[in-house]
């Protein structure tokens, strides 16, 4: 039996059938029929954001903290163009989201109509795939296909552009089961010969290291469990990218900490000196590799990735395995056990000994002295006071983001939401709203810098309206800290436009929105202030005044290999040569 309905009702029905419970959006002329349908039902909650960028980041936060597909709904023209940053962010971090955009009626497309934009054209390079739904009869199937594409294989953002006349017209609804998903079926099972070769390499390795990334998180909780089992079975040290934090617990005994430009000394040294690098769901990003010609010069490199285009893109893989992390790790463990394999225990004990030596450098050491709060101290206290809570962390982009990655520990996947690939300032606040919607009773903290936070501060309205008790933990140095740090190191301490004048009074700002503001400037008050933030039932802006000129270390300067890291006490002037300065 087929069900006849309007295109607008189809949209809502398809969302329900896909298991969507929350949509982040902003209405406008070209989506009015869909909003009319949303008004007449109670199964899907609609969260009215204050800017479409916020809707997409909120959908990302929802998706990353649940493993489900996030959904945003925007109008045509400016609604769609405002969604572009969020789509690009989701593309670079492989986050499954579906954005539905309104479009002018089909008969007006191309006429430069009011609020018309070539949305499919604009979003083609920043989505995994997109569709212009020209016919109500195929609209439902298109939406089902969109969800399938967003979540299958390497996840990513998709967009369905729906002209207004298609929303008004009626046709038969296509059920999920009747929708054709055969058009997109990427390979998920790894080649067994390559897996055997990796097993061989692990058994022979003397200085192996796991280098894991967001692919483990995207593959689902099973992948994280298998990863833990594999580390347990082999005793091989493990490091992770910014995107992969939480897949292996920070309290685990083989944990090296994050690697990369601001990664831990022991993690980067292990990457440089290893003889077998096992990349699981990471992509050799330039923040990770540093100088490519000097990147881990003496190692065999295995690369497990679901996307064939990631393999050999930057670093040549000796053992390439195309497949889903959970599937490949499951096969790997089966082979490992079935063959009764053992690692070279003696060699690995020596390797662990070497790593312990590196650990003694204590690269995250800092001194909290005097009456000014060090940003590292603020995060250390936040960690101490919240680590045993049901806690989710989002961040903005910059120094605070790196410090959060260094000083906060994550025991489980899907607890850490940060803009890694695109580095989108303004991501964290709306993302925290998305996370809080999905986890109403959990503690959701956005670790922010004051400059990033101001980029999407309008979402205070959303947090207050929907009573979302998100905690905005702002490390306020009145600077664009990371820009300032680079100017100090690279541009002769000429601080061109990297400080903020005329910052708002964040306490008054919070109060103006009907939220709570807390100002903290004394290290002795910090613990009490953090507890006050946590215990307040509602959104809080926490204005933490911190040391203005603190730099983020360790740091691999651009154009340098992993073993030439700068540590906190180093004289950092003139360390980046002309060659490094052109790199971002």
């Amino acid at each position, binding site marked *: 039996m087929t069900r006849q309905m309007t295109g607008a009702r189809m949209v809502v029905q398809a969302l329900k059938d896909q298991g969507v419970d929350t949509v982040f959006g902003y209405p406008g002329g070209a989506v009015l029929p869909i909003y009319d349908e949303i008004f007449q039902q109670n199964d899907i909650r609609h969260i009215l954001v204050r800017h479409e960028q916020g809707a997409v980041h909120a959908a990302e936060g929802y998706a990353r903290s649940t493993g489900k597909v996030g959904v945003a709904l925007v109008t045509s023209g400016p609604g769609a163009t405002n969604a572009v940053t969020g789509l690009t962010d989701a593309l670079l971090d492989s986050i499954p989201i579906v954005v539905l955009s309104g479009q002018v009626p089909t008969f007006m497309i191309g006429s430069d109509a009011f609020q018309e934009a070539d949305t*499919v*054209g604009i979003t*083609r*390079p920043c989505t*995994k*795939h997109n569709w*212009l739904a020209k016919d109500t009869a195929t609209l439902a199937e298109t939406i089902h296909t969109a969800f399938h*594409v967003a979540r299958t294989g390497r996840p990513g953002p998709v967009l369905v552009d729906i002209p207004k006349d298609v929303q008004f017209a009626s046709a038969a609804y296509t059920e999920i089961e009747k929708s054709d998903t055969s*058009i*997109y079926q990427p390979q998920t099972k790894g080649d067994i010969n390559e897996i055997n070769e990796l097993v061989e390499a692990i058994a022979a390795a003397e200085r192996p290291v796991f280098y894991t990334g967001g692919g483990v998180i995207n593959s689902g909780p099973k992948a994280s469990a298998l990863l833990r089992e594999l580390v347990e079975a082999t005793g091989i040290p493990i490091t992770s990218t910014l995107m992969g934090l939480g897949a292996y617990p920070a309290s685990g005994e083989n944990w090296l900490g994050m690697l990369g430009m601001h990664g831990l000394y022991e993690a980067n040294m292990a990457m440089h000196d290893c003889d077998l690098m096992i990349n699981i769901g990471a992509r050799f990003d*330039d923040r990770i590799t540093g*100088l*490519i*010609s000097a990147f881990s010069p003496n190692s065999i490199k295995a690369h497990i990735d679901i*996307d*064939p*285009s990631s*393999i*050999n*893109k*930057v*670093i*040549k893989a000796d053992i390439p395995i195309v497949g889903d992390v959970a599937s490949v790790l499951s096969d790997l463990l089966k082979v490992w056990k079935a063959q009764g394999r053992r690692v070279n225990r003696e060699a690995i004990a020596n390797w662990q000994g070497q790593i312990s030596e590196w650990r003694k450098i204590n690269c995250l050491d800092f001194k909290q002295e005097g009456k000014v709060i060090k940003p590292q101290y603020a995060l250390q206290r936040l960690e101490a006071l919240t680590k045993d809570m049901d806690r989710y962390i989002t961040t903005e982009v910059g120094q605070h983001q790196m410090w959060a990655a260094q000083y906060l520990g994550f025991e489980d996947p899907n607890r850490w939401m940060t803009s890694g690939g695109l580095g989108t300032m303004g991501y964290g606040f709306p993302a925290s709203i998305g996370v809080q919607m999905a986890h109403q009773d959990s503690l959701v903290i956005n670790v922010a810098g004051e400059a990033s936070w101001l980029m999407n501060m309008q979402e205070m309205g959303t947090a207050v309206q929907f009573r979302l008790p998100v905690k905005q933990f702002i490390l306020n140095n009145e600077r664009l800290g990371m820009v300032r740090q680079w100017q100090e190191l690279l541009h002769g301490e000429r601080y061109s436009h990297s400080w903020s004048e005329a910052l708002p009074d964040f306490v008054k700002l919070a109060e103006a929105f009907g939220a709570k503001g807390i100002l903290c400037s004394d290290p002795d008050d910090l613990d009490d202030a953090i507890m006050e933030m946590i215990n307040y039932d509602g959104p809080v802006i926490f204005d933490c005044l911190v040391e203005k000129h603190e730099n983020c270390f360790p740091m691999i300067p*651009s*154009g340098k290999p992993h073993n030439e890291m700068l540590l906190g006490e180093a004289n950092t002037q003139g360390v980046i040569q*002309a*060659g*490094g*300065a*052109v*790199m*971002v």
Partner: protein
Amino acid sequence: MSALKIKKGSTSHSAYNLRPNFSDVQERHTLAVLVDNEPGVLARVIGLFAGRGYNIDSLTVAEVDHTGHMSRITIVTTGTPQVIEQIKAQLGRIVPVHGVNDLTVEGASVERELALFKVNGAGEKRVEALRLADIFRANVVDSTLESFVFEITGAPEKIDAFADLMRPLGLLEVARTGVAALSRGAQ
């Protein structure tokens, strides 16, 4: 840039070009890409090449299976082996792409191109043009007392050679279709 003493236009210091692991020999490859014939599919393919800085030497596209709504895009591209591998992987990632075949490495193939040449001339040059057209098995598809339009098919090199010969004989205009290619043999 000048303060850093880096030559204008230099990319040798860029993080994104330091690829010593890979060969820098430039290779020319002919790729056959089978796609769903849906709106925007060509834009996706071309956008990929433009966005990632790949070369397109020649591009031909037409529907080849009307009932199955399938089109075949034949792309001739130049790049290092690593770039060619990336191009194929990136093309394979596009949702409406069904398959990517590298005709340059997957056994022998035939490549053909069709071209139209307009040649103006009188007297001995006109006779010479006609004689050369005959040698190249080009057909005359239009003629006036001062001009010919020749139609020629063949490998791109043959068409290049014909163009070189026609130039001194009054070549006015050339239209080329770009390369169409198929693998040889029963497969």
